[in-house]
């Protein structure tokens, strides 16, 4: 039992370590591996130390955490909604976060308040959909999905309205936020911590998730209390997405495609897929961000462009081959 799980995970751990090393070693300022090593041994020059410890390391960790959180959240949403098109943002979470962040910017607040407000917005969106989907009748995933999609459309309208009426001087800040970029992450630690916690949390959940993925009736027949489990997945996925969005704005694609890619390669065992998502999502975003900062340096690309450019052909190839 251990062996089939261990090999792919070991490979992914190796890949993420490689990606991290590349990301820390490569930048628009070229440094030799010796110089980078010297920094970690405490013998680097002041400039190298700033470049590695203040710029590259926090950014790499932020990218890894954001990518990992989004991929795990996407995988959870796909199980929950039993819909292959589900991604972390499908239920309007990024919209709620964006409205929170934009409101803080409109009020002239800066820095940590914007992050806090974004997080509050994301959680508000979560509970709004949670409450409305409950309704008076019976609850189904499709009802949750419809509620979420409509609420998301509502957030979209509010965002457009805010952009249209806000003073011109606030606009650039708002647009950066909406585009999403790892370079604006303040500190990687909440994201990294949450990702670690989640990886350990989903291991005992994996079995129940496997059963749930086959359908609620089957899960109930096998003695799983479906409703509490579903709400737990929903809250967990929302928390992960809210943290990721708060760190780096809404970065698309990772949450949708990484879980699918892994399922095509590894099969649909959630005990394997969820930790694998954390590793593969993190690796993808770290690599994408490294490319985004060096491809046309000194100009910097938004990381979402690179994730899509890397991910689309890979995904299409896997899908094509899987027939």
């Amino acid at each position, binding site marked *: 039992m251990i062996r089939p799980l261990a090999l792919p995970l070991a490979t992914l751990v190796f890949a993420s370590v490689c990606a991290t090393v590349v990301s820390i070693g490569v930048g628009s*300022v070229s440094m030799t591996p010796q110089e980078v090593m010297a920094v970690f041994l405490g013998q680097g020059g002041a400039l190298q130390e*700033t470049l590695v410890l*203040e*710029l590259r390391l926090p950014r790499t960790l932020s990218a890894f955490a954001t990518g990992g959180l989004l991929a795990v959240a996407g995988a959870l949403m796909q199980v929950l909604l039993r819909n292959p098109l589900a991604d972390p943002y499908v239920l309007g979470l990024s919209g709620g976060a964006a409205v929170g962040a934009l409101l803080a910017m409109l009020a002239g607040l800066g820095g940590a308040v914007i992050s806090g407000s974004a997080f509050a917005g994301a959680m508000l969106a979560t509970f709004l959909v949670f409450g409305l989907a409950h309704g008076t009748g019976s609850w189904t995933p499709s009802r949750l999905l419809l509620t979420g999609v409509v609420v998301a459309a509502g957030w979209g309208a509010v965002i457009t309205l805010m952009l249209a009426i806000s003073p011109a*001087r606030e606009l650039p800040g708002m647009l950066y936020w909406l585009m999403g*970029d790892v*370079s604006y992450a303040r500190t990687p630690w909440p994201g990294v911590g949450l990702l670690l916690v989640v990886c350990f949390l989903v291991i005992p959940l994996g079995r129940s998730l496997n059963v749930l993925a086959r359908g609620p009736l089957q899960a109930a027949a096998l003695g799983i209390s479906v409703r509490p489990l579903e709400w737990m997945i929903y809250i967990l996925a929302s928390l992960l997405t809210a943290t990721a969005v708060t760190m780096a704005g809404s970065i698309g694609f990772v949450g949708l495609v990484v879980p699918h890619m892994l399922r095509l390669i590894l099969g649909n065992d959630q005990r394997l897929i969820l930790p694998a998502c954390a590793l593969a999502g993190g690796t993808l975003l770290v690599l994408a961000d490294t490319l985004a900062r060096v491809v046309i340096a000194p*100009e910097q690309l938004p990381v979402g462009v690179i994730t899509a450019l890397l991910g689309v052909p890979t995904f299409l190839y896997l899908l094509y081959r899987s027939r």
Partner: protein
Amino acid sequence: MKWMHWFAVVMGGLLAAPVLASPVCATDDLNQRVCLESPARRIAALSPGATELAWAAGAGGQVVAVVAFSDYPPAARNVTSVGSHTRMDMERLLVLQPDLVIGWVTGNPTEQLATLREVGIPVFSIEPRSFEAVSQTIERLAVLAGTETEGVAEAERFRQGIAELRETYRNAAPVSVFYQVWDEPLMTVNGEHLIGEMVELCGGENVFSNLERLVPRISAEAVVAADPEAILAGGMGEENRHWLTRWRKFPSLTAVARNNLFFIPPSLVQRPTPRMLEGTRLFCEKLELARSRRSGEVRL
């Protein structure tokens, strides 16, 4: 003879110390007091406007980093670029080891400016919103760069030039003006914008001066309804005049009937730099031309 050597060293040190170590301070447009132990020698200007202002302050030779579109003065094109003002390449910026960064309050991402402060680089954030603010910004930059003689002279030249224009057009007959910032969507400025100030200085009356937003989006109908006597437009690039041709569809507009459709090179009016003096002069000349085309009409 050894003592003479020491004497020279000590005296030299005493004389040089106040010059070398004198700290310089200035308050930026975020109301932050920025102090440098000695005048900045390596300046990074993070907007095209900041680059121009640094040169105006006499500190052009000290600028070691600029951002994309920093095309004026021509010497700025030879300075290393660190990316666009919305997304800087932080590594390339840090490796140039600036001892002063001129930031743009609303143009640069606050997170990237915060990172610069965290690694110990002083950031002086600017956002001039009036003619006087342009002069004051030049003076403050000159203090930080230790180039006060040139900076104060340039700031004063600009101040004087604007004051002279203001005096010339103080009693000029009012001309109603529509200034077109952008074509699609159609955008103008309100009275608080620097360009709005320019319109008023030349004896113009901005037909949209009372709108709430600094750069409002408006409809073509609103322009037709306001029926301005003159329409002035920038454009993309310095020679692109097609923005004005759309108004010829409305021959009943006073501005069209009198051919008062004027092109103003956007770089002369849209960047808050001393070049605005030239832009304002051009602006005033166009309005004067519009006044001269009133002949044949009886005016009260």
